[in-house]
């Protein structure tokens, strides 16, 4: 049954090519269907075609469900907000939807590669909206190299252990008795491959080119929806598949460098979209750091917070930049006439910075508690310093946007409504965060059960 989440979009993608006029309505229909249907899924392992353990399986557990609800919902909202842009790119968007769902659901490593490529190609096509072909080309080259490396790592792993099921990998590793040294190469290749897409330094030179002139549709999708999916996939792989214990030093250096570089580069920027994209890079580094250190729950919470905040920030930021220009100096006082959008933007920005009353604060507190809990005393200092830098540039941005003389006016009722509702969600979750905690709690146990038993 979970297959429908992938099959229906693919089917309608083909149909929409035949019938260009109705492509957008098909898109809306499929997105709505996906969002609604994802609430009716039951947990379990679905075997495609009934080939038993040898074939491709789809795994639906709490982790996947959270991702499905969140990302399908935001995809639907983003598409609805940007009607004009969506009409032109309807087919690509339907394929993207299929790719995202596939990434979240799959339990097979090669299937992951296929969906990674599908999502990647749709992303490359989306970025053509920016009218900057060289950046899209860069993105294409880097993405393909990354996926290729992932494939290389994948087949080396297969040749060692003989299965491609994600849930069986660890048990097979123990059966064979492979040492971490022999496993280092395939896992590092897979890590690098995913790292390109996940914006880790030093693999992320495509990010600036693609997102610095991003339109509201493509920018939001790439930085919020696709980024969230890739990070969730990365998380699942890091926890259940990869056993990279002796590359800890290297990985930690890469991740800490990502975090610092992202935030510092944002500090220097004076353009609103650049600030947002560098902040995304920094946060992505932090998320992967949490996953590599086993802090699964905190990682998922941070992904949720980031996806929601970046949705709001990019939608408003890209719309402002399109309307009035990219430099923050030109946008001074933009919120004077757009008070509701300003409130939404402020709430999301304060949430990313981690100020109380908002969900980001709860997440940050949990993250710090988790890191401290593993008796690591230096990393919290780095994270706190980075948070300070992040806070400073966001506050600078906010002050400039609220106080100035600008006559920008954005009239998009659906955007205002959805942005405000997400902002309200961020506030509510900041105060009554227990439901979110309960939602996220079963993940760790289920993951352990999967690793040990192969199913649950």
């Amino acid at each position, binding site marked *: 049954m979970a297959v429908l989440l992938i099959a229906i979009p693919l089917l309608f993608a083909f149909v929409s090519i035949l019938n260009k006029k109705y492509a957008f309505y098909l898109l809306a229909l499929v997105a709505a269907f996906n969002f609604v249907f994802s609430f009716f899924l039951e947990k379990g392992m679905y075997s495609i075609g009934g080939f038993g353990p040898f074939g491709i399986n789809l795994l639906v557990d709490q982790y996947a469900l959270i991702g499905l609800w969140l990302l399908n919902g935001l995809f639907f909202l983003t598409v609805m907000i940007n009607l004009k842009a969506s009409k032109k790119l309807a087919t690509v968007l339907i394929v993207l939807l299929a790719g995202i769902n596939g990434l979240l659901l799959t339990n097979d490593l090669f299937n992951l590669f296929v969906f990674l490529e599908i999502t990647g190609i749709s992303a490359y096509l989306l970025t053509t909206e920016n009218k900057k072909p060289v950046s899209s080309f*860069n993105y294409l080259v*880097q993405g393909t190299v990354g996926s290729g490396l992932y494939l290389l790592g994948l087949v080396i792993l297969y040749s060692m252990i003989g299965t491609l099921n994600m849930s069986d990998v660890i048990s097979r590793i123990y059966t064979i008795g492979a040492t971490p040294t022999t496993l280092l190469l395939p896992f590092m290749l897979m890590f690098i491959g995913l790292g390109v897409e996940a914006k880790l330094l030093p693999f*992320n030179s495509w990010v600036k080119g693609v997102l610095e002139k991003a339109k509201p549709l493509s920018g939001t999708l790439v930085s919020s929806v696709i980024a969230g999916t890739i990070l969730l996939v990365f998380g699942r792989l890091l926890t259940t598949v990869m056993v990279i214990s002796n590359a800890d030093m290297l990985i930690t250096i890469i991740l800490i460098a990502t975090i610092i570089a992202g935030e510092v580069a944002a500090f220097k920027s004076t353009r609103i979209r650049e600030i947002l994209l560098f902040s995304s890079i920094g946060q992505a580094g932090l998320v992967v750091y949490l996953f590599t250190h086993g802090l699964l729950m905190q990682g998922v919470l941070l992904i949720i917070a980031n996806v929601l905040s970046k949705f709001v920030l990019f939608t408003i930021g890209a719309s402002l930049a399109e309307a009035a220009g990219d430099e923050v100096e030109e946008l001074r006082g933009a919120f004077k006439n757009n008070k509701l959008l300003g409130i939404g933007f402020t709430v999301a920005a304060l949430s990313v910075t981690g100020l109380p009353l908002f969900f980001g604060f709860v997440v940050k507190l949990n993250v710090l508690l988790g890191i401290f809990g593993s008796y690591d005393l230096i990393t919290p200092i780095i994270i*706190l*310093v980075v948070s*300070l830098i992040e806070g400073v540039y966001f506050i600078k941005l906010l*002050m400039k946007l609220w106080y100035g003389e600008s006559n920008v006016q954005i009239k998009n009722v659906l955007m205002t409504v959805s942005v405000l509702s997400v902002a309200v969600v961020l506030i509510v979750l900041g*105060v009554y965060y227990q439901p979110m905690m309960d939602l996220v709690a079963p993940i760790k146990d289920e993951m352990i059960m999967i690793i040990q038993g192969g199913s649950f």
Partner: protein
Amino acid sequence: MLNLELVVLATLLGGVVAYLLSMINKRVGSAVTILVSGAVFSLLAYYGFGNSIDQTVELIPNFVMFKVTALGTFFAVLVSFVFFMVSFFNPFFAERYKYPNAFNLLYLMTLAGVVGVFYASNFITLFVFFELVVWTSMFLIPMGKGTKASITYFVFSTVGSFAMLYAIIFMAVGFGTTDIDTVLAGLTGTAALIVYGLLLVASFAKLGAYPFMVWLPKVLGNAPDPVSAVFSGGIEKMGAFIAVLAMIKISPASAMFEAVGLPVQNYIVGVIAAVTIIVGTMMAIRQDDAKKLLAYSSAANGGYILLAFTIGNSVAITGGFFHIFAHALASTAAFLAIGVVTYRTKTSKISELGGMIHHMPITYVVYLAAIISMAGIPPMGGFISKWLIFQALIQNNLVFLATAAFIGSIGSFLYVFRPLAALFLGQKLPKYKDVKEAPLLMLIPMIILTLLSVVAGVFPTLFLPMINNIMTELGFQTLMTSGFQIIGFNGTLDPALVAAVFGTGVLVVFILFMIFPKSRKVGLMDTYTGGEFIYTEELLHYSADFYAPLERLYRKEPFVNKIYDSIRIKVEELGAFVRYFFFTNKPEVTVFWIVAILLFIVWGDII
């Protein structure tokens, strides 16, 4: 029984109501702030001193827990009183703000946060409300002039907050709980020293101690006047609260500095406090803007408070709490008086004003009383606290710190005299011929504050029970009093007698003034020298460059500002480097790094 949680929630709700009402009519919204803050103050005072505040929390989820202590009640009542008094000014300043609706909302949210800080039971609650105050007050600042001040405020405040957060999580992981009393009592050894230091960093950042002094003049100079008053009288006291937690509740056992009988770390804090006093006083003397002058004065007084808590015996700590009380009253009154001047004349630069006493006599008296209190002259409240602090300093043979405190006292008289003489006294400027006295609604809070200051100075024993409760709660001896007198180490202070002597002196001088002939009035700008006409009278005006000979001694700014600027520039340069190096237009950078990392791994494998 007053449910504390309801108070906090009602304040927040009141803020939302104020926001909505402000959209209809700005004055009504501001009136809501007056009502709500007044309600908060009176409820807290009435129930708090009657020891019947209920601390159960039902609606807000489980990380927020309150605990009613005498310490918390003291601070909360004082700060909510300040907010209440200042809120009377809100309706008048409402038109000058860019976002008046948001102002009212944020004003009340800040109040709610501050009350929450003082009554917090565990550190997480403390931190949540602490940060809440930071960002709500941060958005209040740019409604005055310019936006850079709020960024500076945010940076320094966050440095302090994050130091505290590190300490909190450090303790949480170590103890498994974040309840304030349990955790602070259980700290030992190096852990105690680390937490002590981190909490003090937070306290310094909030109080504006050296080297974090930079944000105070920028913020208080640029913020709207009610906000400056609230900052100086209310929000900085949060820093004092944290200092109390750190210094009095933790007792890190470490080497004693034998000569003065204090532990080493206390003495270091004392030195920092002394430096704060001196630098604050010196910088205040040379200021031309009345608000910046008062800002530096707030920083210097913060130094006095820290100094009092460093010494650690009952007289000093009582003096510290009394100084918090007296300084809050005096500083709020002073800022409000300057606020009146700004409201009527649209400027607060001393060199542009003069002779305001003729237009605003009541404001003049308020300001006079406030600065007398801040300088520590009887018969005001500031004298009592400074007397207590000096007693303790001398008793403990703290020569260096005592010298700094005395210099600060004398200097404080210099700097408070400058606005008084230059702004209020002196001769009228023709520009401000039609300036009137402040409206009645503004006069009320100022008069109340002044009266309280006077009463605190003449009959301090009326306010001592409030402080004695805290002392017994903290485990110290209370101050010995007999009737209306206070008994210190080296003698007895009879404030009523002192006030009577002071009053008699004033009366005598007044009678003499009335008897003797008056001086001749001359136009202010009518100057000439040596037969030549002057074309730049403003520079030779009576109040320009008031203390020029003294100021020439230290013309340059303190060097700390340059360090902060260079840190910011270094971070920006790092950002530029990252952007240049890693984020270029060609796909090769990524591939290059991929190859490099792969080679690194394979090399490791082979070897």
